[in-house]
C-alpha cells in the first residue's frame, strides 16, 4: 500500500549549475532553526543537504543546525519524513530558518482508479498502488517478478523458468486472473502484463474490491491498471540501463541422479524386496561397477545435457523531455534469453519493445495524449516441447550413451522414453517450433477542460490494438540406432511443416465527460460518465503439409499435397458499456462514492445481453476528527472504509441462442455425385436462450492507519466475493432418446472470503533511510452450489461424492486433500503380521520393515479408501486446482545509506501441499527408472543377500522405506503426509544492492545520474527439506514432480546511466 517512492526516488535535481565563476565563490557559514509550519514546534532530525554535494547536516534536539564553509550561491535542501521537502537558495544569507510543511505523507498521492484518478486520502475502495520507483527498485526482466510480494493482496506465483514462457499465476485475493488495463484501455491478459517492459511503467494500481466494479465486465477478479510513463517538461533526460543476468536453477537435485551401476544395484535390491527374480546377475553387476567395458559405462545424461549457468541480457534506453506545449517519453527495450540446455539451438527468446507517449497542449484546456507501443517477440522451442525433453533427460537410462557403441555419428535410442534428447534439441535433426509475435497498441486520448464551466471536462479516448502471431512448426523425423548393435531402429516418418497465423484486432472508443466542483467550503462533488465501446476480431489460418520425399525448405508450398490440410477460424466480439461514478465528500472527511456500469455483451440472446452492476463505497476519515486529533496526536491518519459492488463476466459459448447450421468435419460429408463430396451442415442442437452473465458481488471492510506522520502504517481488509451463475450443465435426466445434450446454464455459485493485512514502517536515522513492509493475504474458497447428481449416502456426502482432488461442496472449506494417517513405521517383519491389512489379496505378505503403519480409521482391520481423512491441505499443481495457495505473504525491506541502497523482498505461501507422487518415484512405484541419491538413505538389509522376509534378517534403518517393485501392495502406495508434504515456504524473492554515483561526480562527466546494482532473485528458500529439490513455489509438476522445468535463481548485474 504505502509506497516507498520518497525513499527511493533519485534526488530530483532542478539544481543550479555549478558556479562557473570562481571569483563569485565565497565560503560562508549558515545556521538556522527548523520548525513545523502548522504547530510551530521545533523539528529535530531534519536532513539538510547542500545541493549537488555530499555535504550536509542534521538538526539537533532544538531544531537547529549549522553548516560551515559552503558556497554562498549554493542551495540547501531540507527534508524530513512526513514533511514536504524544501529547497532554498542561500543567496548569501547566513541564517536560514525554515518552517517545514507537513505532508500527509502518501495520502497526498494521486492514485489511478478506473476511468480517472483520485487523491489517495479520499479513496473509499481497496486500491493498492505501486510506483515506478518501487517497481524498478528491484530490476527484473518481467514485471511479475518485479512486484511479487510487494503489493498486498496480489498473489503471484512463478511456474517455470523457461525463456519466453510467461505463465505466472497472478491473482488478486485468490479470485483468479485479473483484468488488465493499460493506459485506460482493457488490453490482453496477465501474460501480456508480464511481458511489459518494467522501465516503461509509471505506476500500477490494483483495484481489489468494489472499486473494480467500474470496469464491470470481466473485472470480477479485480483489475490491474498500468499507467505508462509520460513526458516531463524540461531538459531531455536520457536513461540507458543494461542488465546482465546469470541464472542457475533453484533446484539442482537432478545432478544427484544415481549412476548406472547404482540404479542396477538398486534394481536387484528392489526385486529381492518384492520376491522377484533378480534382473541382473552378480557378474554383470560387477561389470557395471567397474564401468569401463564398452556397453557397461555410465552416461550422466543430466550433466551432459544441462548447463550450470545461463546468461541473458537486457538493454533499455529511454528519453524523456519536452516543453510547455509538448512532452514525450520514449523507450526502447531489448531482451535476449536462453534456455537451460547445453544444446542451445531450440530454446531462445528475444523481445523488443518500443513505446512513445506524447502529450500535447493543443490549445488552452485542450490536451491530447498520443501513445504507441510495439512489441516483437521471437521464441524458439523444440518441436517436442521442453517439458518432454526435460523429462527424458531426467529419466534416460544412464546405461545408454548418446551415440551407439560402434558409431559416434549414430544417435542411440535410449530407454525408457525410447528416443534421444540430443536429436530433439537439434534444429537440423528434429526441426523447430518458432513463434513470432508482433503486438502494437495505439491510444489517443483527447481532453477538453471547458472554459465556460470550471470543473467540466470532456474527452474521447480511442485505441486501436493489434497482435499477429506467426507460429512455424517443423517436424523432421530422424533415425535412431540400437546402442549395442548399431542397427537402425524404426523407420522415420515424413517431415511436416505447419504454419499458423493468428491476427487479433481490438478497437476501443470511450467518449467521456466529468464534472468536479466544490459547494461552499466543505462539499466536494464529482461525477464521471463514460461510454465504453469495444470490438475485438480474431482471424486464424493454419496450413500443414508433409514432405513426401525430401525435406527442402520450411515454406508451406514446398510440401506435397498428400495429406495437406488447412483450417482456420474467425470470430468477432462486440461490447458496449455505459458507466458512471459519483463522488461526494464533506471536508474530505466523510467520503461517499457510487458507481454503476451497464454492460452489454454480444454473447447472449437479446433479452439476456445487458447487465447492471452497481457499487457503493463509503469512507470516514476518523483520524481527521477533533476527538482523535486532540487526544491521540500520534495518529496522523485513520480511515475506515467499506464497499459493496457487483460485477461479472460474460462466460459461456457465444451465440448459443442462435439457431443455425454448422459445418461438420470432412467425415460428415456425403457423396451425391461421383467424385464430389458435399460437406454436411448440422442443424442446431438445443438452442440456449437462457445463458447469461456470471454475477459477482464483492464486499470489503477495512481501515488505513498511519502513526507518527507516516512512520508506521497499517492497513487491514476483510473481503468476501460471491459468484453466482457459474456455468454448469444441469444434472437433469433427459432420456438418451432426446437426441441432444443439455446446454450450459448459469447454475453454480461459490464464495471467496479472506482478509489481508499490511504493516509498514519507515524512518530516517542519520544518513540511513529505511522502510519495512510486511503483508499477508488469506483467501479461501467455498463452494455454495455445485450442480451434481444427488449424493446417496452419508459417506458420499462426507466426501462430497468426489475424489480427493475435487473441492468439497457445500459450505465446507475447499482445498483439503484426503489421505491416510500414519502411525509410525514397522520395524520388524513380525510387526507387519499384526498390522491392518493393506495389500488386497496379498495381505501384508510383501510389506517390509521401514514401511508406514497406516491408521485403520474405521477399525475393520483392512486399510482401504474408507480409511482416508481430509487432514491435509490440497496441492496446487498438476492434479489440483489452478489457484494460488490460500495464504501468501511478503516482507520487504529497503534501506539507503549515503549513495547505497539495499532492498530485500521475501515472499512465501502456506496452506498447501505438494505431492511427490510415489508412483513416479522409482523404487516406490517403479514407473520410471531414475533414482535420486537421496533415497539411498533407505531401509535395507544389512547383508544385501539376506532374505528380506526372514524375521531374523537384520535391517539398517533409513529415512525412506525399503525399495519395492510392486507398490500396490504396500503402504507406500497410499497418499500420506510423508509423500504429500506441507509446502509452506519463505523465499528471498529478490535482494538488491545499488550504488548511485554522487551527483558532483557525475556532473563532472556530463551525466545526471549513474547507478550500478546487483540483485538476485530466488536467492534462498526456507521450506521442508524434502521439497527443496522440487521448488515449492513452482508447484507440483507432472511425473515425479522433479521432472518439470525448474525456476531460476537469477543474478543480475546492471548499470543505469542518465544524461
Amino acid at each position, binding site marked *: 500500500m504505502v509506497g516507498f517512492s520518497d525513499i527511493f526516488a533519485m534526488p530530483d535535481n532542478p539544481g543550479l549549475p555549478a558556479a562557473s565563476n570562481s571569483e563569485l565563490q565565497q565560503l560562508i557559514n549558515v545556521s538556522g532553526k527548523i520548525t513545523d509550519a502548522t504547530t510551530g514546534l521545533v523539528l529535530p532530525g531534519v536532513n539538510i543537504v547542500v545541493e549537488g554535494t555530499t555535504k550536509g547536516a542534521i538538526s539537533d534536539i532544538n531544531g537547529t543546525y549549522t553548516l560551515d564553509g559552503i558556497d554562498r550561491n549554493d542551495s540547501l535542501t531540507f527534508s524530513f519524513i512526513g514533511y514536504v521537502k524544501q529547497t532554498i537558495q542561500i543567496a548569501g544569507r547566513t541564517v536560514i530558518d525554515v518552517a517545514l510543511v507537513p505532508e500527509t505523507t502518501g495520502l497526498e498521492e494521486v492514485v489511478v482508479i478506473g476511468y480517472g484518478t483520485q487523491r489517495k486520502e479520499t479513496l473509499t475502495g481497496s486500491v493498492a498502488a505501486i510506483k515506478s520507483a518501487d517497481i524498478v527498485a528491484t530490476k527484473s526482466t518481467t514485471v511479475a517478478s518485479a512486484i511479487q510480494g510487494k503489493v498486498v493482496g496480489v498473489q503471484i506465483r512463478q511456474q517455470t523458468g523457461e525463456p519466453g514462457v510467461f505463465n505466472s499465476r497472478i491473482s488478486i485475493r485468490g479470485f483468479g486472473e485479473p483484468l488488465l488495463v493499460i493506459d485506460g484501455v482493457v488490453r490482453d491478459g496477465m501474460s501480456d502484463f508480464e511481458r511489459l517492459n518494467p522501465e516503461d511503467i509509471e505506476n500500477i494500481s490494483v483495484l481489489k474490491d468494489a472499486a473494480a466494479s467500474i470496469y464491470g465486465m470481466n473485472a470480477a477478479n479485480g483489475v490491474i491498471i498500468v499507467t505508462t510513463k509520460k513526458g516531463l517538461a524540461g531538459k531531455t533526460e536520457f536513461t540507458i540501463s543494461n542488465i546482465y543476468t546469470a541464472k542457475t536453477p533453484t533446484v539442482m537435485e537432478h545432478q544427484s541422479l544415481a549412476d548406472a551401476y547404482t540404479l542396477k544395484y538398486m534394481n536387484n535390491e528392489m526385486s529381492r524386496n518384492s520376491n522377484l527374480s533378480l534382473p541382473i546377475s552378480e557378474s554383470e553387476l560387477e561389470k557395471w561397477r567397474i564401468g569401463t567395458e564398452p556397453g557397461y559405462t555410465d552416461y550422466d545424461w543430466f550433466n551432459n545435457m544441462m548447463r550450470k549457468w545461463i546468461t541473458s541480457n537486457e538493454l533499455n534506453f529511454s528519453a524523456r523531455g519536452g516543453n510547455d506545449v509538448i512532452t514525450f517519453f520514449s523507450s526502447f527495450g531489448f531482451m535476449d534469453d536462453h534456455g537451460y540446455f547445453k544444446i542451445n539451438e531450440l530454446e531462445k527468446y528475444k523481445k523488443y519493445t518500443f513505446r512513445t507517449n506524447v502529450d500535447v497542449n493543443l490549445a488552452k484546456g*485542450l490536451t491530447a495524449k498520443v501513445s504507441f507501443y510495439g512489441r516483437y517477440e521471437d521464441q524458439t522451442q523444440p518441436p517436442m516441447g521442453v517439458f518432454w525433453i526435460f523429462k527424458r533427460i531426467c529419466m534416460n537410462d544412464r546405461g545408454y550413451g548418446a551415440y551407439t557403441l560402434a558409431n559416434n555419428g549414430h544417435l542411440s535410442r535410449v530407454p525408457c522414453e525410447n528416443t534421444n534428447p540430443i536429436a530433439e534439441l537439434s534444429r537440423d535433426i528434429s526441426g523447430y517450433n518458432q513463434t513470432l509475435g508482433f503486438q502494437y497498441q495505439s491510444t489517443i486520448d483527447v481532453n477538453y477542460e471547458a472554459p465556460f464551466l470550471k470543473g467540466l471536462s*470532456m*474527452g474521447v479516448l480511442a485505441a486501436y490494438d493489434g497482435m499477429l502471431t506467426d507460429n512455424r512448426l517443423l517436424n523432421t523425423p530422424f533415425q535412431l540406432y540400437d546402442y549395442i548393435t548399431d542397427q537402425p531402429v524404426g523407420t522415420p516418418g515424413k517431415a511436416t511443416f505447419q504454419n499458423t497465423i493468428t491476427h487479433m484486432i481490438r478497437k476501443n472508443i470511450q*467518449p467521456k465527460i466529468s464534472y468536479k466542483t466544490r459547494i461552499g467550503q466543505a462539499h466536494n462533488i464529482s461525477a464521471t460518465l463514460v461510454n465504453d465501446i469495444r470490438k475485438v476480431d480474431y482471424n486464424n489460418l493454419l496450413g500443414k503439409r508433409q514432405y513426401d520425399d525430401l525435406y527442402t525448405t520450411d515454406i508451406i508450398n514446398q510440401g506435397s499435397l498428400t495429406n495437406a490440410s488447412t483450417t482456420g477460424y474467425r470470430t468477432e466480439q462486440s461490447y458496449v458499456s455505459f458507466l458512471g461514478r459519483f463522488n461526494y465528500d464533506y471536508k474530505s472527511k466523510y467520503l461517499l462514492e457510487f458507481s454503476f456500469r451497464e454492460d452489454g455483451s*454480444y454473447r447472449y440472446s437479446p433479452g439476456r445481453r445487458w447487465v447492471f452492476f452497481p457499487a457503493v463505497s463509503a469512507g470516514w476519515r476518523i483520524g481527521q476528527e477533533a476527538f482523535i486529533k486532540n487526544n491521540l496526536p500520534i495518529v496522523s491518519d485513520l480511515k475506515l472504509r467499506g464497499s459493496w459492488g457487483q460485477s461479472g463476466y460474460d462466460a459461456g459459448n457465444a451465440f448459443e441462442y442462435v439457431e443455425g447450421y454448422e459445418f461438420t468435419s470432412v467425415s460428415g460429408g456425403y457423396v451425391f455425385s461421383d467424385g464430389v463430396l*458435399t460437406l*454436411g451442415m448440422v442443424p442446431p442442437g438445443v438452442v440456449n436462450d437462457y445463458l447469461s452473465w456470471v454475477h459477482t458481488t464483492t464486499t470489503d471492510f477495512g481501515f488505513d492507519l498511519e502513526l507518527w506522520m507516516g512512520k508506521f502504517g497499517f492497513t487491514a481488509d476483510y473481503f468476501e466475493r460471491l459468484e453466482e451463475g457459474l456455468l454448469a450443465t444441469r444434472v437433469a435426466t433427459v*432420456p438418451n432418446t*432426446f437426441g*441432444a445434450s443439455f446446454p450450459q446454464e448459469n447454475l453454480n455459485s461459490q464464495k471467496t472470503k479472506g482478509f489481508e493485512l499490511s504493516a509498514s514502517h519507515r524512518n530516517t536515522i542519520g544518513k540511513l533511510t529505511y522502510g519495512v513492509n510486511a503483508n499477508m493475504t488469506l483467501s479461501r474458497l467455498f463452494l455454495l452450489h455445485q450442480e451434481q447428481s444427488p449424493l446417496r449416502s452419508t459417506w458420499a456426502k462426507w466426501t462430497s461424492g468426489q475424489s480427493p482432488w475435487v473441492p468439497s461442496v457445500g459450505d465446507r472449506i475447499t482445498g483439503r486433500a484426503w489421505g491416510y494417517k500414519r502411525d509410525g513405521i514397522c520395524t520388524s517383519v513380525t510387526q507387519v503380521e499384526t498390522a491392518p491389512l493393506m495389500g488386497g489379496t496379498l495381505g501384508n505378505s510383501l510389506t517390509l520393515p521401514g514401511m508406514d503403519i497406516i491408521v485403520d480409521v474405521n477399525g475393520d482391520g483392512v486399510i482401504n479408501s474408507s480409511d482416508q481423512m481430509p487432514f491435509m491441505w490440497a496441492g496446487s499443481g498438476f492434479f489440483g486446482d489452478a489457484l494460488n495457495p490460500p495464504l501468501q505473504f511478503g516482507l520487504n525491506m529497503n534501506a539507503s545509506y549515503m549513495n547505497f541502497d539495499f532492498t530485500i523482498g521475501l515472499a512465501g505461501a502456506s496452506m498447501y501441499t505438494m505431492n511427490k507422487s510415489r508412483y513416479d518415484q522409482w523404487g516406490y512405484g517403479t514407473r520410471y527408472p531414475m533414482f535420486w541419491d537421496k533415497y539411498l538413505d533407505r531401509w535395507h538389509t544389512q547383508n544385501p543377500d539376506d532374505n528380506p522376509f526372514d524375521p531374523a534378517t537384520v535391517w539398517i534403518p533409513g529415512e525412506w522405506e525399503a525399495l519395492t517393485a510392486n507398490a500396490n501392495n504396500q503402504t507406500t502406495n497410499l497418499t500420506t503426509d510423508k509423500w504429500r508434504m506441507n509446502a509452506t515456504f519463505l523465499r528471498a524473492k529478490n535482494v538488491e544492492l545499488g550504488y548511485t554515483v554522487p551527483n558532483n561526480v557525475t556532473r563532472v562527466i556530463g551525466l545526471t545520474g549513474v547507478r550500478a546494482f546487483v540483485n538476485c532473485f530466488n536467492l534462498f528458500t526456507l521450506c521442508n527439506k524434502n521439497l527443496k529439490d522440487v521448488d515449492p513455489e513452482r508447484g507440483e509438476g507432472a511425473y515425479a514432480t522433479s521432472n518439470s522445468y525448474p525456476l531460476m535463481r537469477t543474478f543480475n548485474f546492471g548499470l543505469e546511466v542518465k544524461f
Partner: protein
Amino acid sequence: MRKILIYISIFASFLIVEACEDFLTIEPLDKTSADVLFSNVAGVKTVLANIYQKMPIEDFTWTGGTGFNQHPGGAFGGWHKAGMTDEAVLEPNTGRQPGVFPGNYWDYEAIRQVNQFLETILTLKDEGKMTEALYTQLYGEGHFILAYMYFKLASRYGGVPIIDEVQKLSESGDNSALFVPRSTEKETWDFVLSECDLAAANLPTSVTTSDGIYRATKWAALALKSRAALHAASIAKYWTNAALTGDAVNAKLVGGMTATDASNYYLQCINASKDIIDNSGKTLYKPNPASKTEAAKNYQDMFETPSMAWDEVIFMKTYIDGSVTGQQGHDIDFWLYPQQCKFQNLYMAARFGASLNIVDLFEDYTDDGNGLSVPVKTRTDGVEDEYEDDPKNLTSLTQPFIYYDNQYDIFKDKDVRLQASVVLPGSTFHGTEINMQGGLVQMDGTPVIYSVSTAVGPDGNTYYTYGSANEAGYSAFGLLGTAAANYSSTGFALRKTLQDTKNVSTPALGGSTQPYIEFRLAEVLLNYAEAAIESGQGDAGLAKTYLNAIRKRAAHTDEIPATLENILKERRVEFVFEGTRFWDLYRRREFHTVFNASKRYSLVPIIDLRVNPPKYIFLRVTNYYDQAAGGRTFLTRTYYGEIPGVATNNLIQNPGY
C-alpha cells in the same frame, strides 16, 4: 473549433447509444440460418448430406464394434457381415465372430436432426420460401431416411420409442414429456412401413445427374419397404422358433405379433416389390449372358464397378478417394486383397477367408431342373462331410483323394457366381495366379500341413509346404493364429466388390471408392418370391419366374421350382458376402440353429509327392479359428440387443440383459 469538437463528441455519444443494440447483434460466423441454406440447391445439399451420411448403412465403412462411417482403417474394409455368419472367417482371430450382436445403433441425435429437417422445410414452405416441388422431394427424402433409421432400430431392438418430432425442453424444467416409452414391436414395424409409404408417395421416380444420382427415389423407398416388410413378417412367423420371455415380451415390446400380422407384412412386401418390378423400369444387369464366361464377368463387374449397373441398382452409397481427401473413402481393397497382391510392407492383407461351407453351396450346371448344391469333389468315394479337426498333427493321409493337376480344376464346373465372388485357389486375381497351397505329402507318405517345410519330390524338384519358397508367393494358411497372418485360413479369399480387373497398383487406406450397393432389383425379386411362397399370397408363378430370372443371369439354362428351400438357397448364393445372410438368419430365427456348436470349414490344397508328377489333393478341415474356439454358439437373447441407457431413459430392457 473547440465547440465543434465538443458537439461532435456529444453527438457521437448519442449516436452510439442508439446503435448499441445493433452493435451487439452480430451474426456468428460459423453458423448459417435455415433461410440462407435452403434458398439454393447447394445449401439444401449440405443439409441433406448430413442426414444421408447419418443413415446407418452397413457398408464398407461399418463395423459392429466401432459403428458407422469409420475412416480410415477403422472398419478394416467393413469387417464384412459375412464374417459374422457361416459365409466367411475374419482373420486373424480378431474379427467379429458369429454369435454376437451386430453392434449398437441408438442414434436418436440423427433422428432428431431428420425431424428438425422435416420441420424446417415445412416452415419454409409455409412461409413461401420453398417451392412445392422441392418441398415434396425433400419431404420424401426425410421420411425415407427416417424409415431407414427406424428399420435399423427395429431390427436390432424390436419396439423402440418412436420420436417423430423435435422434442423441446420445457421452460418449467419438467421434462417428463421427453420420456417416450417403447412402442410395441408391431407398432414400430408399422411405423417403418408407413414412413416408407410417405417417402414413396413423395419421392421422384428418378433423380438427375445434377441432383446427384446417389439420392433416394420412390423405388428406394419401396425397396426398403420390401425388405422391412419381409423382415417383420419373418419375425411374426418365426418368433416361436426362439421365443423369449420377460417384461419386454409381456408388453409386446419384442415379439407379440400374430399370424395375421405375418400375413399382412408378407402382403405389403409383395405389393411393394411388385410395384418396383412392374413400374420402376429396373431390370437385372445383363440378364441374358451369351456364355458362362460372360455371365461371370457381368456378375463381377456389377460389384466392382456398380456405376455400370444402374439398370439393376436401386440405391447405393459411393465414396471419394480418402487417400487424397482425408476421412473419406473405404479400405476394402487395402485390407482384403490376397497376400500375394497386398500393399507391400504395410499392415495386413487377406483379413477375410470365404468358408468352404459357402463354396460347397453353389450349384454346378449339371443338375437340370432341381437346383441342388454340389460340394466340391475331393474324394473318389463321394464322402464329402468328413473334416479333419487339426490337420497339423496328421501323420498320414489315407483317404481316397481325387488327384487334380492344378489347384483350380476342382471348381471349374461350379456356378460362375462362385468364381466371380471368391478368389479360388489357382485362379487369377489382379494379374497374379493365387496359390492357396497349405501342405505337402512327402514321398514317404508323411504329411506336413500348416508349417514351413520343404521336401524333394519324385521328379527331383524341391517342393514347399505353401507352394512357394517365399512369403510373397502364397496366400493361405501361413502364420495361423498370429497377428501377422496375412493369409487366408480357409483357402479362399474375397473377390466380390474388390477391385480385381481394374489397374490398381497399390490399394491405400481410404483409397477405395467403389460404391456399396444397398438395394438392387435381384433382392426385390427374391423378396417377392419368398413372401409369396411363405404366405400363399401373391403369384407363385411370378415367384418361379423371378427366381429363374436370377439363375438365368448366372448362365443357368434350366428352370427350377420356386420352393422355399430353393429361394433361400438362391438368396445365399446370389447375395453372398453382401450381408444379406446375416439378417436373414436373424429375421428367420435361424442363427441359433445354424450356429449352435457349428464350425466353418476350410479346403486345404496339398501337393502329394507320392505320385509322379506330383498332383494336388484337397483336404476338408475345420477352420483353424473355429477349431481353436471349439465351435461357435449364438444365444437366443441376441436376437434383440441390449437397450442402451435404461438407467436414465426408463425404458423396459430386452430379455436376458
